[in-house]
């Protein structure tokens, strides 16, 4: 009886150990919470080139796993965030960065909205100025001469 309980216990312990050991071997994680945070931030900013609307943090594509592995490796080697991002852009193109660079081919993207805003404000100001000028004209009282001419026209009707 006692032997059976002992065996069952041993099996349970072994199972528990096996279950706990799995995640650690399947995915090498950073122990340091600060590094883990940095890793998760970096991988959320990089876009999977294969499955185009996912970051490499969430994507299950093999290429994303390779990219995550490279990010991890570069972090271990002490690369800065900028160096890691640049390494990915050098290989996969500026497409992989969710933050577009500020370069001649992206000027329209960065400055465009402000140009449209300035045009819009200009149009509104011009309309307001025109409206005000018209209203001022309406509210100016008629001169003696104008009043006489207006009365003349009304009589002729």
């Amino acid at each position, binding site marked *: 009886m006692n032997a059976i309980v002992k065996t069952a216990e041993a099996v349970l312990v072994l199972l528990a150990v096996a279950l706990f050991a799995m995640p650690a071997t399947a995915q090498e994680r950073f122990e340091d919470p600060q590094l883990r945070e940095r890793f998760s931030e970096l991988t959320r900013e990089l876009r999977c080139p*294969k499955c185009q609307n996912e970051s490499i943090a969430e994507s299950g594509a093999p*290429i994303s796993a*390779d990219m995550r592995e490279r990010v991890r490796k570069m972090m271990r080697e002490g690369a800065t965030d900028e160096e890691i991002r640049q390494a990915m852009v050098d*290989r996969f193109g500026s497409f992989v960065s969710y933050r577009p660079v500020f370069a001649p081919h992206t000027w329209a993207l960065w400055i465009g909205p402000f140009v449209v805003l300035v045009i819009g404000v200009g149009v509104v100001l011009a309309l307001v100025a025109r409206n005000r000028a018209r209203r001022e004209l309406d509210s100016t009282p008629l001169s003696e001469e104008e009043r006489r001419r207006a009365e003349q026209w009304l009589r002729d009707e």
Partner: protein
Amino acid sequence: MNRIWLFLPLVLAVTLGVVFYWGLGEDPSELDSALVGREVPSFDLPMLGDKEASGGPEILKGKVQLLNVWGTWCAACRVEHPHLNRLAEQGVPIVGLNYKDERGAALEWLEERGDPYTRVIYDPEGSLGFDLGVYGAPETYLIDAEGIVRHRHVGVVDQDVWESDFEPLYERYRKDG
């Protein structure tokens, strides 16, 4: 005079329509290679056929060549293979990059389907593939005599793609070299 402005919305709508229509024709999964105009990244990898032999970027220099990334796990490579065989028959030199594959399976594949490659680089870890920015096989690169990447195509290179995308560049760089 002021009436002209009434046409502004129409002009805007037509302009945007043309731009969007043009954008619809683009294939969003086709990314520009970051490597076009740059040298092939350096590597030191074994050859598929010969475990002892290894090679670096120098095997992609000296003449205009294609570099074709393939693997036996890649379904589209099956479709592409006969096209590569035909190109090889026409005398186009193609270097293979066997990507994340097993040597045995890859050699068997070449035995079965014919071998269009002048040589095949064996890259089971995908290290050169990663440096090239390979995100899906098959991919094909046109590399000039100086070892500079001139064109990249993701997907099957069939007769149409060869004639429209590769052949003009291939002829041009061959003349320049």
